[in-house]
């Protein structure tokens, strides 16, 4: 009888005997045992003389979960895509598993169900956000589109990992045309197994935003370290600016759409209103695009690599007001840029400073670079610019010539450009 994780066992070592629940370990060659005191200790597999099963693990029969629908509350749809907010710790394996059904969702976040009916739920895939790419953005957009065009659904909440959440929010902002209802992305920075998880407030606020009149793609999350309110942040003007804090997401070069408490929404800036129309999916995407950060002394020959590999467009994250090593430098980017742009590579510039607008006219370097045909993207965030470039180049009619691409890149589709910075 081979012992399996979850079994209550007796472990025999050279000098001692331990009893407890056998667990899988995060490290190969080691088994873990949960002692009766609740503490876990480990043993090297090779030190075990024997493992005797005392009681087999028995999977609890989970009660069928029936969610009562409260007719006085609005219906929303939820899309789970993975990340910390949609994971639960599995005590048997010691691993973290996705939270993909309503029952688990209710167990962890009962409070969201006091505000809305989660009438529909979809988990098209479960992955940490660092593993997502443009295909996943398309998949999410498709599911969102279906939900938004269902008249019984008032809005959509998407839970998502934090690492690339702002790329997804930008993608949805471009992919969902004629947006009719709120599309709210939310997250957690602290795991949901703890009483202090930020997911609780974030989800409640996300639910409130989803039934609001704000028909925008937005990220809803902690406004500060306090558990008092969240900000609803425009999907193209937001960035993860901290690796671990609850208020990691900040609006850049714009202002929050609303302050969201658990019981009310305070609107802070102008927004697109909820409408009766149908949302249109436009998720064409050219994946031969890249985002490259410029550093001092960087060799411009790197552009040849992208050209050789068949890239169609590139966003350069440039210095200051829009500068690159140029005519006075050993690495002359101006000359190289002229060559590659002539060969058809679309090159855009976005600010490495994160905050502020590019302006190539202030210094001679900028004026020199301007002549290369590089497209200066004003105050657009580089991550948003990268997503937008793929989207624009995905449209054959727009990608036909450099001037049309330039025009589309500088057209304000989803508030990605803000002419008035304050």
């Amino acid at each position: 009888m081979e012992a399996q994780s979850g079994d209550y066992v007796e472990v025999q070592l050279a000098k001692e005997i331990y009893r407890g629940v056998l667990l899988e370990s995060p490290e190969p060659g080691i088994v873990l045992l949960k002692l009766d005191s609740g503490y876990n200790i480990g043993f090297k597999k090779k030190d075990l003389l024997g493992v005797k099963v005392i009681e087999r693990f028995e999977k609890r029969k989970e009660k069928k979960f029936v969610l009562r629908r409260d007719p006085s509350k609005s219906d929303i749809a939820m899309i789970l895509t993975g990340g910390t907010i949609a994971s639960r710790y599995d005590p048997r394996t010691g691993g973290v598993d996705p939270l993909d059904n309503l029952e688990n969702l209710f167990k962890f976040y009962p409070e969201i169900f006091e505000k809305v009916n989660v009438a529909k739920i979809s988990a098209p895939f479960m992955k940490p956000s660092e593993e997502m790419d443009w295909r996943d953005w398309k998949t999410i957009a498709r599911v969102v589109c279906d939900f938004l065009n269902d008249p019984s659904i008032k809005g959509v909440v998407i839970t998502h990992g934090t690492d690339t959440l702002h790329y997804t929010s930008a993608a949805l902002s471009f992919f969902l045309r004629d947006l009719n209802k709120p599309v709210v992305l939310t997250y957690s920075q602290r795991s949901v197994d703890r009483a202090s998880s930020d997911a609780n407030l974030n989800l409640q606020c996300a639910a409130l935003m989803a039934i609001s009149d704000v028909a925008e793609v937005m990220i809803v999350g902690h406004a500060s370290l306090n558990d008092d309110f969240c900000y609803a942040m425009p999907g193209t003007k937001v960035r993860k600016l901290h690796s671990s804090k609850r208020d990691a997401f900040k609006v850049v070069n714009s202002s929050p759409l609303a302050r969201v408490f658990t019981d009310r929404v305070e609107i802070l800036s102008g927004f697109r209103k909820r409408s009766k129309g149908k949302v249109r999916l436009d998720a064409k995407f050219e994946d031969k695009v890249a985002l490259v950060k410029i550093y001092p002394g960087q060799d411009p020959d790197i552009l040849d690599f992208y050209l050789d590999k068949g890239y169609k467009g590139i966003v350069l994250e440039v210095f200051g007001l829009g500068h690159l090593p140029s005519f006075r430098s050993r690495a002359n980017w101006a000359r190289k840029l002229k060559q590659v742009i002539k060969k058809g590579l679309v090159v855009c510039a976005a600010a490495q400073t994160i905050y502020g607008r590019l302006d190539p006219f202030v210094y001679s370097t900028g004026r020199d670079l301007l002549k290369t045909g590089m497209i200066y993207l004003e105050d657009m965030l580089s991550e948003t610019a990268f997503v937008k470039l793929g989207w624009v180049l995905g449209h054959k009619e727009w990608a036909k010539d450099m001037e049309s691409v330039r025009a589309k890149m500088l057209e304000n589709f989803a508030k990605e450009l803000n002419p008035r910075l304050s």
Partner: protein
Amino acid sequence: MVEIDYEKLKFKAGLEIHQQLDSHKLFCECPSVLRKDKPTLVIRRKLHPVAGESGEVDVAALYQSSLNRVYEYQAYDTTCLVELDEEPPHMINQEALKIALQISLLLNCKIIPISQIMRKTVIDGSNTSGFQRTVLIARGGFVETSFGRVGIRYVYLEEDAARIVGENVFRLDRLGIPLVEIVTAPDAKNPIQLKETALKIGEILRSCKVKRGIGTIRQDVNISIMGGNRVEIKGMQDMDIFLKVIENEVLRQKKLLDSGNLVGMETRTAQKDGSTKYTRPLPGAARMYPETDLPLLKISRDFINEVKKSLPKSKTEVRKELSEKGLSSEMIKLLFKQNKLEQFKELLKIVNKPNLVAKMILIYPKEISKHLKIDLDVVEKRLEERFSDVLQKVAEGKISESQIKPALESIVLGKEPEFESVDLGEVEEKIQKLIKEKPGLSEKAYMGLIMKELRGKVSGKEVIEIIRRCL
């Protein structure tokens, strides 16, 4: 006093001792210092119920949370994002681990070579995360008592909780300070054996690098008698009332059982008068799950051997050392009795005169207490932090040894001691001048002349030493 037959009552008791270690915080690099000043940042948080491993929401947790409390946390420049639960824990503090291993080995425990840092659910607001990090590091030890061995079941290394400073207001200065928790087996057959056990463990703790003073050690006692439930008594660190509290508790339990009542499974708190007060029902086993942000804690053979080499010396060894330094056996006895060995060693670093330092911390406070008619406790408290200042002055030659006691006396009276600065160098010059002016006199004669001038500012012993040197 009522005679209690503990054997007949099948008295069972064990200890749970929490001791702060003298190191930086367990899972970050913040210093372990308590603050009295205004916080630099205050944040407000809520805790909410979490579904347990089996899916059910912890009942106690749910109850607390249903109050929908807002907890306020006070942060300082001596706390960081880890205490605020805004950054994952850093690697476990190696110094704290080493101290905890020393303690475990001195308690004859076996070290657990592979262990997992756990999260123990705590939802009273005292932990920003909603859990306390704790790890089992050793088990199966014992201490010897005059009644026989008392087993040490477990030694844990864990982080201290935030300090409550107001209603739902917590200060983060204490959160994360490393603690060892020592759990004994319920082997003590009578209160005296239990007290002996507590003192033995206390002595071992103090031989290692642990924090000293009020609040740095917390001691709980678990007591049961035949036919009754286990009762936990918190706040048993005051050894003066230790026996009285246990006697009273046994009598309380006996009275309940004799009159046909049940002894509730409860937590009580020791009171100054030796009684206990009901605090709350005994909490059930806390929910524990792994700290997934940290790797398994592995304690290698090499590390254990290194710790073994650095184990603090036993009492007998220390006694021998002190005696070799020239300290009288009477003083050595007092040092151990008054538990001032660490302080003594520290002060010796300032002025390396064992008998002088011993006299200063062991004898002078008593004499001052008698002279000024002030309680010894008060005198000691007022002087505790000041011995080093005064010794420093001696080391710098700003005051003489004979001025130590008057200086301490004025400190006790709340006056800053004023010293006429007597530079021993100047004294020497004076003596040389005197010898030149009046050559051929005896040691005693010179001594008389000098002391006439400098009495009270410099000791005769110092003067005679200088005179001998000059002659």
